[in-house]
Structures are given as structure tokens and as C-alpha cells.
């Protein structure tokens, strides 16, 4: 009773103050209440699966500091789907102030049948106040109550129903609202458009509607389809009853992966006009109510694109497209830029087409394209257009042809890949402007570029085929040629060796080497050129001189007397003075060897110099 009175007072105070004050004074004896009270209310006690229940926990008291939100963790049969939204009111009546704060939640039942909102605790100024538990009956899906049929409300216990915001004692008119999501196609290819429509079926006047949260579509790429400003309302008949069908939202969805994809439920808050049986309330202000509705999960099958017949240049476009290639002029000059535009347009999404499908152009310098893409929705179908604007500069004169550009896409209507190609475009390129005064035009040179790799063509054999499996280094002749020089060399060396070992060769070798041997021995003798070894020195010099003549004439040095040497030297035509010097030197040595007094170093040096000189002279004379 108190609650209702309060409720009434609130409503009146909001509109007509005087009347409200009078009514409040007359009917509410609890204006000076200083006790804080809490209570829980639901908007209805019978509901269908898939609907949301609105739970309001209201805290009323003279002052609301140190008041916390209710503890919602004890909810077992419900899932908290939205909330809380908090509203606080304050009023002053007859010098007493009253505050009220309400926490409003949207709850989704987890099961069918009888479910209970348990007693909720609210911490107020250090102590916990509890609400009363509320029973709710959840019916199967689609069991929407007829609008005029009174709901079978069975409040728990003997107390009055603490339920909807409507007036207690009167049955509130049920709200016939249903939110459903529908798609135009339950199975589509990856990249093919699926149109999703979110529809509100209502038998009540809907004032406003808005989504509770942003809808997400995992596995899809979604494009919004703009709705007309004036919502489109269709009258339909469901189960023999008239309903209004309002389209709330449309999305063009494109599956990005194949497989079974689900569109999660979407929750909307709808503000509806209540049919109030209270004429007073109806008259003074619009009785409205905000309810939450939730759509069902939709499952869509995304089919993978067939692997068979996939063209090489396919980049994932699905739909129906056309391709146009145009140039801004058909005649140009070398180094004069030409605009080249490739446009792909049609029904479907072009978001995945990234590679500009232009072939490599020889004799053109090409700059990176400017890419622009637009999309629009016509008759709920997404139409895309992508344009590549190139600037190409002809580098060489002549008729230059831009070859046909190809674009491949998958057409879900025919379930096949299609390739469209542009017409080749010819550009007449004239030679560049010649600078007046210069003899020859300046030609911009560029490297010859390889456009793409391909295998070399067949080889031809105009000179006839030959068996080349036997290279020369495998032929016997090669082996023979390898061995012949070695054999020849070995023979030559053997012959030369045999020649060297003959007595004549030995004599000749001895003769050839005589001078060298004598020179070496005289050098050795020089070391003995001291008084203590004077004898050895003279003996050595004498022996060297004798042996030299022996070597030269092939005689044994030991058997050579002065007489014999003189004969040999004279016979060989050595000059008289050389022979005399030779003998003089030899005699000096003999004399010194047997006359120990002469160990003068100066004498030794003289003898050695004379010996070297004489031998050098003899060598010259004998060689001549």
C-alpha cells in the first residue's frame, strides 16, 4: 500500500504539483518515514524463453548516503544481461525529504519453468537489508500472450504482487514484442553477401528502440545497410492476429572463413506505450515502459570456394563484376604522361582485391597507381567499385599497345569462376619535341628490361646433329697424345745420360770444369796465407796450377813435370810470356816450400795474384 501511494505521489508530483501534493497528503501517512526500506520488482512474472526480465531494486529512505548496490551474485536461475541503470529521485513533502534510488537490471532466465529471484541483500549504512524473493514462470519460446488476455499472475505468498511498474491491483497490459533476426540465405559462399535483417514484431505502439550493445559478427565482414529515416512498418498477420513488423537494422554480411558460422543474439531496448487502465495516468502523461528483447542465434553455412578451375590471377572477389580500361588520350608524345584507368565495378565486395591487375608494360614508365574504392547499397545488395589510376609515360615512339587486362572472380549465381578482360588500347606515340637549334633530338635512353621469365625455346640444329657423348678427352687418341711426349722425353734423357757417361764426355767435362775448380781451390788457399801455414799455402797453389793443366789436357796431375807441362802448353799455342809466368809462379812456390825462411805475407799475396792472373790468361788462350 505504501509503495503504491508513493508511486502515485511521485507521478503526480512530476506533473501537477498542487494536485499531487493534495493527493499525497490525503493518502500517504508515511511522509515522515525515516526508516530505509528496500524492495525488488519485476516487470512481469510470466515470460517466454528468449525474453529479458526487468528487475528493479528500489531503496527508499530520508537519506541515501552509504548505500551500495544490491548483491547480484546470488542469482542462480538468471543471467545478468544488462544493467544496472541507476536513477535517484529526491522529494520534499511537508518538510520531510525522501530519497529513492533504483537499480534496474535486465535478466535472462537460464531455464524454463519456475525460476526464482532470491532475496537480494543491500548494504545500507552498515547493515544489510533484504528484498523478498520473487517467483517467475518462464514459458516456452513463442508463447506470447494475447494482448487482451490477463496474465495469470500468482504472487508469492499472500502479499500483493510487487511486479510491474503499473499500478498495483490492476493488471498491467502485457507487452507483445518479439525481436527476430533473419537472413536471406542460410548457406552462401565465402565472400558472398548474406543480408541480415533484424525485425521487431509488435502489437504495441513502439516509441523508441535502440541496441543495448554494438552487434558483433565474428567470422564475417559486415557492411551497414542504411535504413530510411522513417522506419518501415509492415502489417502482417501472425497466428491470426495483426502485428506490425518494424525493420530495426540491416547488415550485409560477407563470410571470411568457411564452415558453420553463427550470428550471436542481439539485444535491443524498446520503449513502448503502455495501455493503462488508469485514465488519470493516461491523461496526464504518456505511460511508457522500456523492455529488452533479444534475438535468437542464427547459424549460417559458409561454403568454401571450389578449388577446381580457380584462375591463376584470382584474388578472392566474389560476385559479378565488369572491368574497363581507358586512357585519357590515344595519341601522345614520348615523355608525355598518359593517364590509364582500370575500373572494376559490380555487385559484391572488392575489399580483398589488392593487386592491381595490370601487366608489365614495355616501353612505358609506370608510376604507382592511385587506388580509390567506393561501395554503395542498392536493393540491399552491396555494389563496389575500385579504380586504379596509373600515370604511364611512353618512352619510345610508335604504336604502343596496352594489352588486355584480366580480372577473375567467382560468380555465386553460376557457381563458377569467371574472367573478364578489357579491350587492348592502342596509343599512338609521336617522337618528342625537338629542341630548335640542336642538330639531334635528345633521346631518353632506358635499359632493356626483362618483363617476365619463361623457358628458352627449342634449339635448332641447322648444321646437323652430332653424337657428342664421347668428348675428345675420352678418346684413345687423347691418351696416346698424353703418353707420346712423356715417352719421347724419357728416350731423350736416356740417350743424353748415356752420352755423358762416355770417356770423351768425362774428359770434356773435366776440361770444362778445370777453370772453376782451380778458382775454387785458389780461394781455399787464400785462407792459409799466414806464416804458420805458409808451406801448405804454397803447396796448395802449386798443386792447383799443376792440376789445372792436367784437367785441361786430360792428363793426371801427379805425373806432370815442368818439362811435360811446357810441352803441353806450347803444343796448345799458349803465348810465350804466359808460359814463362806459369813456370815462374810454379818455381816460386817450389822454392818457398823448401826454403822455410820465406814466410813473408807480401810474398804470398804476390804469388797468389800471379797464379790467378796466369790461370785466367791461360783459360782465355786455351779457349780461343
Amino acid at each position, binding site marked *: 500500500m505504501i509503495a503504491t501511494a508513493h508511486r502515485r505521489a511521485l507521478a503526480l508530483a512530476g506533473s501537477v504539483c498542487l494536485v499531487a501534493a493534495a493527493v499525497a497528503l490525503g493518502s500517504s501517512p508515511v511522509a515522515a518515514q525515516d526508516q530505509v526500506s528496500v524492495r525488488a520488482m519485476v516487470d512481469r512474472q510470466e515470460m517466454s524463453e528468449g525474453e529479458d526480465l526487468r528487475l528493479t531494486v528500489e531503496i527508499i529512505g530520508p537519506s541515501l548516503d552509504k548505500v551500495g548496490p544490491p548483491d547480484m551474485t546470488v542469482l542462480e536461475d538468471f543471467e545478468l544481461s544488462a544493467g544496472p541503470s541507476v536513477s535517484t529521485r529526491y522529494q520534499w513533502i511537508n518538510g520531510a525529504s525522501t530519497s529513492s534510488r533504483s537499480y534496474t537490471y535486465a535478466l535472462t532466465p537460464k531455464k524454463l519453468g519456475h525460476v526464482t529471484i532470491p532475496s537480494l541483500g543491500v548494504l545500507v549504512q552498515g547493515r544489510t537489508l533484504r528484498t523478498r524473493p520473487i517467483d517467475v514462470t518462464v514459458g516456452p519460446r513463442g508463447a506470447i500472450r494475447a494482448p487482451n488476455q490477463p496474465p495469470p499472475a500468482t504472487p508469492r505468498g499472500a502479499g500483493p504482487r510487487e511486479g510491474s511498474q503499473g499500478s498495483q491491483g490492476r493488471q498491467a497490459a502485457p507487452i507483445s514484442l518479439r525481436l527476430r533476426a533473419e537472413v536471406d540465405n542460410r548457406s552462401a559462399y565465402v565472400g558472398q553477401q548474406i543480408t541480415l535483417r533484424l525485425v521487431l514484431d509488435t502489437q504495441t505502439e513502439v516509441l523508441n528502440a535502440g541496441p543495448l550493445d554494438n552487434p558483433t559478427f565474428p567470422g564475417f565482414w559486415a557492411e551497414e545497410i542504411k535504413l530510411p529515416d522513417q522506419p518501415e512498418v509492415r502489417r502482417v498477420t501472425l497466428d491470426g492476429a495483426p502485428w506490425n513488423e518494424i525493420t530495426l537494422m540491416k547488415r550485409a554480411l560477407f563470410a571470411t572463413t568457411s564452415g558453420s558460422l553463427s550470428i550471436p543474439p542481439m539485444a535491443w531496448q524498446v520503449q513502448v506505450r503502455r495501455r493503462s487502465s488508469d485514465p488519470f495516468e493516461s491523461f496526464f502523461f504518456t505511460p511508457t515502459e522500456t523492455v529488452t528483447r533479444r534475438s535468437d542465434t542464427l547459424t549460417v553455412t559458409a561454403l568454401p570456394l571450389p578449388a577446381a578451375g580457380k584462375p591463376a590471377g584470382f584474388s578472392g572477389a566474389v560476385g559479378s563484376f565488369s572491368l574497363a580500361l581507358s586512357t585519357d588520350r590515344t595519341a601522345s608524345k614520348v615523355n608525355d604522361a598518359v593517364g590509364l584507368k582500370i575500373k572494376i565495378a559490380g555487385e559484391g565486395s572488392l575489399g580483398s582485391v589488392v593487386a592491381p591487375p595490370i601487366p608489365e608494360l614495355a616501353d612505358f614508365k609506370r608510376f604507382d597507381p592511385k587506388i580509390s574504392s567506393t561501395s554503395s547499397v542498392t536493393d540491399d545488395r552491396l555494389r563496389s567499385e575500385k579504380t586504379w589510376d596509373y600515370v604511364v609515360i611512353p618512352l619510345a615512339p610508335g604504336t604502343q599497345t596496352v594489352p588486355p587486362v584480366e580480372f577473375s572472380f567467382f560468380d555465386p549465381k553460376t557457381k563458377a569462376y569467371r574472367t573478364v578482360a578489357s579491350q587492348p588500347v592502342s596509343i599512338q606515340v609521336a617522337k618528342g619535341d625537338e629542341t630548335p637549334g640542336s642538330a639531334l633530338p635528345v633521346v631518353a635512353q632506358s635499359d632493356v628490361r626483362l618483363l617476365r*621469365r*619463361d*623457358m*628458352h*625455346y*627449342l*634449339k*635448332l*640444329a641447322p648444321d*646437323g*646433329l*652430332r*653424337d*657428342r*657423348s*664421347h*668428348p*675428345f*678427352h*675420352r*678418346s*684413345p687418341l*687423347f*691418351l696416346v*697424345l*698424353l703418353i707420346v*711426349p*712423356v715417352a*719421347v*722425353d724419357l728416350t*731423350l*734423357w736416356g740417350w*743424353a*745420360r748415356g752420352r755423358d757417361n762416355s770417356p770423351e764426355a768425362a774428359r770434356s767435362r773435366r776440361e770444362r770444369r778445370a777453370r772453376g775448380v782451380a778458382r775454387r781451390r785458389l780461394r781455399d788457399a787464400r785462407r792459409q796465407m799466414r806464416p804458420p801455414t805458409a808451406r801448405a799455402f804454397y803447396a796448395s797453389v802449386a798443386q792447383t796450377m799443376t792440376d789445372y793443366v792436367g784437367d785441361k789436357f786430360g792428363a793426371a796431375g801427379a805425373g806432370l813435370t815442368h818439362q811435360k807441362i811446357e810441352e803441353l802448353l806450347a803444343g796448345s799455342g799458349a803465348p810465350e810470356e804466359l808460359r814463362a809466368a806459369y813456370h815462374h809462379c810454379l818455381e816460386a812456390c817450389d822454392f818457398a816450400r823448401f826454403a822455410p825462411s820465406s814466410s813473408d805475407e807480401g810474398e804470398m799475396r804476390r804469388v797468389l795474384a800471379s797464379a790467378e792472373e796466369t790461370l785466367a790468361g791461360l783459360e782465355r788462350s786455351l779457349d780461343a
Partner: protein
Amino acid sequence: MIPAPRMRPAAFLPVAFLPAVMAGALLASVATARAATPQSLFEDGNAAYKAGHYDQAVAAYQEVLANGIVDPRALYNLGNAYFKMGRIGLAIVQYERALRLAPSDQEIRDNLDLARGQIHDRPPEPELQYPIRVARDTLEMLPSGPLDAAFLVLWFVTAGFAGALPLVGSWDRRRVLALATLAAGLLALTAGAAVAYQVRMEEAAVAIILPDKVDVRSGPGEENTVLFTVHEGTRMELGNRLDTWVQVSLPTGLSGWVPASSVEKV
């Protein structure tokens, strides 16, 4: 499966058999000349290839090779025809054979590279230092005929100098001649090493995998464990052979046994 072109080690054939072999070859060429000359077969193959009848082209080129005319151009064209048919493994075999006969041919090398780019297994690139790599590439590029000639000329020059050594009386002249012999000998040795390298390359027991996929097992027989898997076109070195199984190894050191029918020796 086509028969490998005959690559007899003719260098070691007894000289006495040479006339007989030559007479046989002459008879064979006379016999085939009546039906179709290798030249006309080759041109038939080219025409079939141009018309897109690659299988006919393959048959024609094989006929040329079967006539004993192992020309690198025929091998190369056969490789091209296989390539066009999508038989990458066989194409690589033919290209490698052609390259052995004409190591300096850039077109063969390019198409071989292109075919190797089409195979599944990435060819392991041996890590070689810069100068060694250049030396190897140079050795592989040298044309075989001129290299043989150069080697023989250097060989004769060296031998000539060495033979003249004892004939020269003067010590000074003899020293100059000895230095010249040494220089020519070093050059001959280098050229000889290049020839030897080519001979080794020609004799290298290398095979190409032909089926799409071959399991390499730890031993000769299906009961052995699969060590790794190789795919069409992969180049493997051949090792021992036991019954119908051959031992193969990769340059990375992996080795195992595969059925002999799954590889084609180059």
C-alpha cells in the same frame, strides 16, 4: 623411363676393338637413314612441339637419341617437351645430361634453373667461399673441346722444353729452359686439373627423383623406417645398389635407400 644416353668410357676401350665398333655404328646409321634420319626426326619433334603435341615431340627426340646421336640440343629439346608436359623430374634429367655435354650453354643452364625452381624440395646450396665459388662456376662453364686442346698444347710444350734440357750445353741456357719448362708445366697442370674436374663431373653418379613423392628408408626394403621424404626433381647422389634398391644421399649429408625405379640416373 627412357634409356640413359650411352656414355661409354671410350678412352679405355682396347684399340683393337675400335674398327669393329666404328663399323657397327656405320651399319646402324645406314639402317636408320633409310627410315628417317636423326635430323628429320629432330625436326619432326620440333614441329610437334610447336603444335603443342609434346608427347609426340618426346617420342621423336627419344628416337634421335636411340639412334646413338646424343646431341645436347636433342637432350635440351626433350627436356623442354617434358617441362611443357609438367614432368619436371624428367625435364631436369635431360637438362643435366645436356649440360654435361655442353657445359657452357647458357640456355640449358637457364631452363635447368627454371625447372629447379618448380620443384618442391629447396635445393640445398653448399656454402662456398667467394673465390672457390667463382672457380667452380668457371670450371663448369669451360667448353670441353677447347679445354682438351689447350691442355694438350701445354702438355706438348712442357714436354718439348723438358726434352730439350739435356741437349743444351750451356748452363745459362739450360737454366732459362728449366724455368720455361716449369712455367709451362704449371699451366699444363692447371688445364689438366680442369679436364680432370670435367671428367669427374661427367662420371658423377647423380640421379633425379621422378615420382611426386618418395620415402627414403633406412635400408633396402619396405620394412625399414622412413627417414625423410623427397619430391620430384630433387637431385641426389647415388651410392650402392642392392637388388631393386639404391642408396641415395643429399649434399646436406642425409642419406638412405629408395627403390631404383624411383630415380633416373643422369
